[in-house]
């Protein structure tokens, strides 16, 4: 099976080729063939991933690192890079949910995008291209191939955000996402170059993960910190953290399945995947980890506070994604890498579910996105309601559901590693999460319907292709957490043990160099007792319940109160509603000065000086051509004289100047 791993990314690539090159004809001939090609490509990838995963499980823990080299990709002097894949616990966990959730969303898209006449094939081509890039990102065994996937998913995200580019706002949102990501990618590339050149000084001209990490201890600490921080800037763009998160809410301009797949479940988690993959480097730099933890916690809080006031259903979910990603980074920052990945997995289930449910609601309500014009959908869309309720309970961390285990794991590890302040932020944010998520549920599904009469008449439950993925994802959101039940609750935290070989800390350690660092880290932390763990768990559950209760009071019972509150705290409300004016701030300090400088470079330097010189030169050449052609008289005598003069010149110059 390991020899067939190249098929996992190649199948979606074949889908891209088929639908991309022939899609227009296929769609004209038989529309269902388009989605059959796309879905079966991803479905087969998922199937192959499962087989590979099962085979990996057969191996003893210390042997779970299989590399498959497809071909030599780039070779320049001593530098070598291969197109090669790596099968290990981390890449398999990522690949499983990427292909699995991806497959479900492909199926959902059949129903959701059914009305996209003429662009149907294009949509599925982009979606398959995204799968190809994402699989490369998680399966690559070296930085370079991973970066190819990294750029690829960014590109697909751009294409899909602006999928309905007929509306200029969508096109602008795509551009914003792309440019913001380019800023991060630039930092990422600088970090990569720094890493390559410094390893090269030690004779390691490779970007292979295993090789880089095993030689990482040779790097000076300052360089490691710089590399880690530069990489992290790349991650803040891709995974929507402060300061580069601003593109994700706007990215909701894309079709809803795209928001679910790319901007909630998979692509935006690649930053967490990358930091986890490079945990050996990050463990060498306490400063970088500290920065990650703080940025993660602050992002979680900031995004949750904005989500409290938004009325657009997809925007609420988008800010919730940013906030949850913040949690994950918080986990990474305190050294709980596997807890971060655990949350990535459970989050991918329930956040994909929530987006798809939101899409289902919008589908039934003639694409209405404003929650103020929803309400009462509980009766009319029962499946959507129930599944979304499960998803919401999962995300707020209701005991027993997926989010409970993974979020609590992060909060517990934060507390246990001594970051009490960050822990407090995390718990407070959990309360906010409960509030805004249930605000969404109550506004959408409870009370009376506030949509216009024509729209109300057409409300319907979504087709089967859409509800079946919802049910599957709801089931996963309910039980997905049981792969990581902590010891305190009688579980064995299987995912953590499974991921141990990748972390450079466990017994089945495959990568040298991380061990003593991990020991040091373990030494420094203090170990609170089991009783404390239970207490904290109860506390966070209590806060979640308070949040839910508050939302119930404000949005079902006393519905006049929110307006009063908003008036009373109008300053704070306006800050939150306007997203803390971050976009405006960036506009003031970065975009507009840059724009002005560009204008000057364009009008002042480029048009006046550079174009002037170029055009002037061109005109000079033109004139000299016109002048020179008059020498060409057409008289043989003149030609002969020219020849004669040439010879004479040559002879005189040589005989009298060169040979005196």
């Amino acid at each position, binding site marked *: 099976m390991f020899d067939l791993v190249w098929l996992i990314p190649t199948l979606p690539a074949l889908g891209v080729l088929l639908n991309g090159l022939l899609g227009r004809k296929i769609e004209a001939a038989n529309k269902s063939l388009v989605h059959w090609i796309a879905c079966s490509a991803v479905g087969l990838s998922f199937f192959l991933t499962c087989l590979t995963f099962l085979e990996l499980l057969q191996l003893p823990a210390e042997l779970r690192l299989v590399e498959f080299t497809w071909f030599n990709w780039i070779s320049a002097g001593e530098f070598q890079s291969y197109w090669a894949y790596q099968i290990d616990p981390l890449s398999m966990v990522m690949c499983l949910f990427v292909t699995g959730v991806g497959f479900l969303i492909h199926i959902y898209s059949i129903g959701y995008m059914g009305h996209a006449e003429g662009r149907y094939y294009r949509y599925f081509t982009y979606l398959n291209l995204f799968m190809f890039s994402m699989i490369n990102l998680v399966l690559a065994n070296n930085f370079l191939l991973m970066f190819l996937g990294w750029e690829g998913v960014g590109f697909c995200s751009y294409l899909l955000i602006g999928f309905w580019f007929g509306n200029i706002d969508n096109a602008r949102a795509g551009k914003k996402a792309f440019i913001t990501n380019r800023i991060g990618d630039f930092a990422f590339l600088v970090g990569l170059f720094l890493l390559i050149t410094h390893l090269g000084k030690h004779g390691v001209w490779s970007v292979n993960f295993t090789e880089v990490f095993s030689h990482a201890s040779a790097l000076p600490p300052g360089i490691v910190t710089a590399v880690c921080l530069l990489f992290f800037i790349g991650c803040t763009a891709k995974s929507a953290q402060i300061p580069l998160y601003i593109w994700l809410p706007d990215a909701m301009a894309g079709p809803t399945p795209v928001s679910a797949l790319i901007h909630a479940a998979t692509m935006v988690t690649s930053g967490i995947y990358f930091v986890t993959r490079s945990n050996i480097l990050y463990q060498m730099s306490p400063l970088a980890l500290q920065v990650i933890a703080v940025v993660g916690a602050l992002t979680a809080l900031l995004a949750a506070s904005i989500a409290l006031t938004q009325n657009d259903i997809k925007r609420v979910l988008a800010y919730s994604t940013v906030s949850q990603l913040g949690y994950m980074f918080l986990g990474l920052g305190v050294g709980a890498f596997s807890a971060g990945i655990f949350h990535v997995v459970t989050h991918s289930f329930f956040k994909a579910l929530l987006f798809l449910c939101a899409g289902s609601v919008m589908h039934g309500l003639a694409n209405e996105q404003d929650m103020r014009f929803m309400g009462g959908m509980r009766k009319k869309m029962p499946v959507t309601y129930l599944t979304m309720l499960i998803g919401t309970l999962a995300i707020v961390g209701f005991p027993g559901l997926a989010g409970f285990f993974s979020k609590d794991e992060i909060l517990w590890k934060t507390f246990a590693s001594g970051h009490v302040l960050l822990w407090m932020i995390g718990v407070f944010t959990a309360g906010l999460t409960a509030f805004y998520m249930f605000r969404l549920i109550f506004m959408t599904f409870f009370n009376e319907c506030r949509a216009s009469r024509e729209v109300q008449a057409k409300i319907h439950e979504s087709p089967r292709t859409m509800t079946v993925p919802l049910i599957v994802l709801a089931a996963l959101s309910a039980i997905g957490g049981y792969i990581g039940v902590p010891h305190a609750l009688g579980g064995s935290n299987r995912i953590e043990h499974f991921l141990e070989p990748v972390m450079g800390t466990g017994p089945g350690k495959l990568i040298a160099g991380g061990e003593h660092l991990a020991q040091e880290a373990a030494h420094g932390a203090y170990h609170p007792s089991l009783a404390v763990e239970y207490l904290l768990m109860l506390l966070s559950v209590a806060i979640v319940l308070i949040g839910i209760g508050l939302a119930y009071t404000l949005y079902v019972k006393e519905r006049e109160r929110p307006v009063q509150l908003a008036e009373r705290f109008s300053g704070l409300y306006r800050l939150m509603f306007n997203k803390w004016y971050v976009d405006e701030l960036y506009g003031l300090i970065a975009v507009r000065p840059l724009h002005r400088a560009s204008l000057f470079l364009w009008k002042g330097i480029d048009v006046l000086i550079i174009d002037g010189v170029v055009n002037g030169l061109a005109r000079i*050449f033109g004139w000299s051509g016109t002048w020179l052609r008059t020498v060409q008289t057409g008289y043989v005598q003149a030609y002969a004289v020219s020849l004669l003069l040439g010879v004479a010149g040559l002879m005189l*110059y040589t*005989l009298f100047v060169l040979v005196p």
Partner: protein
Amino acid sequence: MSPEFILPAVNFQCILPQILLSLTALLVLLVDVFGLVKKANALALITLAGVVFATLTLFSGTGLQETAFSGMILVDGFSFFLNLTICLILILTILVSMNYQQFFPGINSGEYYSLLIFAAVGMSFMAAAGNLILLFVALELMSVSIYVLVGFHKDNLRSIEAALKYFLMGAFATSFLLLGFAFLYGATGTMDLLTMTEFIRSNPEVLSSGLFLSGVLLTLTGLGFKISMVPFHMWTPDVYEGAPTVITGFMATGVKAAAFAALVRIFMVPLGSLPIDWSMLLWVAAVLTMTVGNIIALVQDSIKRMLAYSGIAHAGYLLIGVVAGGELAQAGILYYLLVYAFMNIGAFGVLALLGKKETEYNTLQEFSGLGLKYPVLGLAMAVFMFSLAGIPPTGGFMGKLYIFSAAIKSGYVWLVVLGALNSVISIYYYLRVIVVMYFQESGAEDVAFPAPSPAITLGLGLAAAGIMILGVFPSYFWVLAQNSVFVPM
């Protein structure tokens, strides 16, 4: 007892391709005179068959490194590569001519094809000559054949004028060449290139003698005339424009290849060790040749005349290789000549496609809108233009790259900078053809466009494919060129 007369060793094997070519020429002539075949393309097909056969026999001589006919003929990789190039030029020209004779039935005659072959035999002997006498005879064989071919449109005044001009100027320049050879003989006492190299090596003081230097410069004049080096280029535009289009392509590539072969044989090897900085002269000549060619090409309205000036510019690029010296530069020149054959005959071939009875069409205006009307023709022309401009991934780019990098290795950075600048200038007029073809509405009067015959489809396809192969997979031919450089035994 009188001294025994010893017959020199005769090795016909070494000149088998040339013999076969000459026999084909005679055969075509006879077939035409006695009217043996009546079909339209018969003469061309017979010629083609003979040339292809001769080309195949070339390969039996690969890897040889010897002299024949008492040193008259050098059989080595250098002559192999150039003979291959010349045969390809000949094949492409014949294929293009088969289409051209639809408009100009006069072309379809035994004399035409036999003259074409005789010119090629001359070129081929120039590439293989180890002796100045043979070099001169071969050059004359080539030149005289081409004088006639240039004037082959017997009823067209421009054609006649071009032939007369070329003949007069050619005779004038050849006299310089002959005088130069005589001086060289006077200074070194030999006409044999290898012996001359040997003599120079053992008597370096001869290099600074006035007699020798005069010989060098006069020889340079004679050969510079053939490659249209500035200031001996004046004839080029008139002759190229007046000659039948197919002949223009033939002489632009073939004569250039042969004359550069002679330049390499004489200048790059025996004179490579000239103590005075004479490369300065060639440096200036190269820059002037590139610049004058490119700048005047900018303002031409006729594509044919534009290509004539572009031919001057390309001679300039090739001269950079001669200035650079060394085996790398030699290989670069060989490679460039091969690419140039494909792209230039291709470009003139497209020109030859358009026509009406006894009329050629070759102004920019007449090409407007053609790219959209005839996509394949447009694509082929685009490939030729991009290659001539030296834009990757075409062969023209690789050729320039090899020559320029050899020059940089020899330290002529500024020369390369000027060469690159000239390439930039040239992009303007090459791309203008493409712009006109694709982005301008076609003119009111309809240009006659005959259904392209299989022959020209094959010819242009071959040329375009050659360009792309040389551009994308250069290594095979580049290695071949590197193994084909002239190193005196």
